[in-house]
C-alpha cells in the first residue's frame, strides 16, 4: 500500500488545522483593521500565536454537559458535524498532482457529504436542552436545507459546460475555454450567495446570531466540543473557498499566461481572495432576518439558478459562444 494513502490525510489534517488557526487570526486582524483597530497583538510576535493560545485554552477548559441534556447526542453532535467537514476535502484537487480521490461525481460528493453536518448541528441544538440552542438549531436546519437547493442548481451550469461532475475535469474545461466566472456569472453570483449562507456567515449568520440567540446551537458547548464546532465552521470555509476556486476561478490555472508562478500558488491566491471576501463581508453587513432569508432563497436565488440553467443550455447552442459554454 502506498505510504501516501495514510500520510496524505494526516498531513491534510494538520494543514487544515493550520489554516483554521491562521484564518481565525486573519479574520480578527482584518476586522480589526476595518474597524480602525489593530487586532490581536499580544500573544507571540504580531499576535501570531493568539489562536494557538485560544485553542489551548479551549482544550484545557472544563467539559460541561448540562444535566438535562441528552448526553449521548450531546457528545455525538460535534463529531457528526466535523467528520463530513473534513471528508469533503478528499475530492478537492489543489493542483494537477496534489489531490486525494479523483472520483467521477466529485462535485456531487461535496454537496451530499456536507449536508450531513446539518444533522450534527441540529442534534447539538436539540440535545443541549436549551431554548436558544433549539432555536439556533432549527434556524440552521431551515437555512442550510433551503440554500443547498440553489447551491446545487447554480453549479448545474458549470456541469453542463464542463460535461462532467469531476472537479479536475471542470478545471481542465476552464483551461481550454474561459474561467467559468465569466460565462457563468449569474451562476457564480447565486453560488457565492448560497455558499455564504451554507457557511452560516454574515449576513446569513442567523443560526449563531449572538445578538438574538446568544450563541445559537452551540450555546451550551464549552471546551473541546465547542472547539469542534468552530473547527467545523472554518474547515467548511476551507472547503468552500477551494470549491469556488475550482468551479469558477479556474482552479490552479494561471491567468494571462503567468505560468512561471507555480499552480499551487495560484490556487492559494484565489482561495485567499474568497476567504478575505468573507471576512470583509462580515465586517460590513447587518444580518438578514429569517423569513427574508427564506424568501430570498426560494423566490430570488432559486429562479435565478434555474434561469441560469436555461441560459446555459441556450447559449451552448449559439455557435460563436459555444466555445465558452
Amino acid at each position, binding site marked *: 500500500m502506498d505510504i501516501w494513502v495514510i500520510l496524505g490525510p494526516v498531513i491534510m489534517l494538520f494543514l487544515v488545522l493550520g489554516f483554521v488557526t491562521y484564518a481565525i487570526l486573519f479574520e480578527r486582524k482584518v476586522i480589526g483593521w*476595518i474597524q480602525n483597530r489593530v487586532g490581536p497583538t499580544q500573544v507571540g510576535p504580531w499576535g501570531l500565536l493568539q489562536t494557538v493560545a485560544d485553542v489551548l485554552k479551549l482544550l484545557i477548559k472544563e467539559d460541561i454537559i448540562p444535566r438535562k441534556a441528552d448526553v449521548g447526542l450531546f457528545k455525538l453532535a460535534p463529531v457528526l458535524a466535523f467528520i463530513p467537514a473534513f471528508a469533503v476535502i478528499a475530492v478537492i484537487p489543489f493542483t494537477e498532482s496534489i489531490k486525494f480521490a479523483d472520483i467521477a461525481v466529485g462535485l456531487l460528493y461535496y454537496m451530499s457529504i456536507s449536508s450531513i453536518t446539518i444533522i450534527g448541528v441540529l442534534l447539538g441544538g436539540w440535545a443541549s436542552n436549551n431554548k436558544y440552542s433549539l432555536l439556533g438549531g432549527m434556524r440552521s436546519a431551515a437555512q442550510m436545507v433551503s440554500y443547498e437547493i440553489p447551491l446545487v442548481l447554480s453549479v448545474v451550469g458549470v456541469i453542463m459546460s464542463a460535461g462532467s461532475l469531476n472537479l479536475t475535469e471542470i478545471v481542465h474545461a476552464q483551461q481550454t475555454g474561459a474561467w467559468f466566472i465569466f460565462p457563468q456569472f449569474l451562476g457564480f453570483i447565486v453560488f457565492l450567495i448560497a455558499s455564504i449562507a451554507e457557511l452560516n456567515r454574515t449576513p446569513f449568520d442567523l443560526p449563531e446570531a449572538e445578538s438574538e440567540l446568544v450563541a445559537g446551537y452551540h450555546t451550551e458547548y464549552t471546551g473541546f466540543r465547542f472547539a469542534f464546532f468552530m473547527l467545523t465552521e472554518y474547515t467548511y470555509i476551507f472547503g468552500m473557498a477551494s470549491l469556488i476556486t475550482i468551479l469558477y476561478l479556474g482552479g490552479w490555472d494561471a491567468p494571462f499566461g503567468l505560468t512561471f508562478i507555480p499552480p499551487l500558488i495560484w490556487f492559494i491566491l484565489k482561495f485567499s481572495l474568497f476567504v478575505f471576501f468573507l471576512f470583509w463581508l462580515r465586517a460590513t453587513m447587518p444580518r438578514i432576518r429569517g423569513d427574508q432569508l427564506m424568501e430570498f432563497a426560494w423566490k430570488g436565488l432559486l429562479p435565478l439558478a434555474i434561469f441560469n440553467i436555461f441560459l446555459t443550455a441556450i447559449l451552448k447552442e449559439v455557435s460563436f459562444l459555444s466555445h465558452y459554454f
Partner: protein
Amino acid sequence: MFGLLKGLGITLKNMAKPKVTYKYPHEPLKMPDRFRGIQHFDPEKCIVCNQCARICPTDCISLTGKKHPDPGKKGKIIDTYDINFEICILCDLCTEVCPTEAIIMTNNFELATYSRDQLFKNIDWLHENDQNIRQDNVSMKPKPGGSKA
C-alpha cells in the same frame, strides 16, 4: 445592490486609515489636567473643617482631628483621614469645598486590587499619592482661555 457595494467600499477604505486605539497597559494613558482621579491629601494644609466629609454624597470620607501639639496655636490638626474607594464615586465635590486645597485630585486612576480591603486608603497612602496632581483647582471662575481666542 449598490448600497451593499457602497458599504463594502467604505469598510475597505477604513482598512487603510490610521488606527485609533491606544496601547493602554504598555503606554500610560495621558489624562487631561482636570481629570478626576484618586485624591491626593496634604495633612499640612488640612484644617479639619470636616467640609469634605459632609459634602461627600456617598459618605466615603471619614476623618478625625486632634488638638494642635503646639499649645500656642489654635485649632486642630488632622489625625486620621480615610477614603473608602469601594464607594467613592470620584465626584470631585470634596476638592471643590476644601478651603485650603488640602485634598486635591490627581490624574492617577488605576485602582484595581485583588482585595476589597485594599480599596480602603488611609492618610499615608493618600499623601504618598503625589504624582500627576491637578494644577488648576480654582474652578467656577472664568478663565482667560475660555474666550473665543
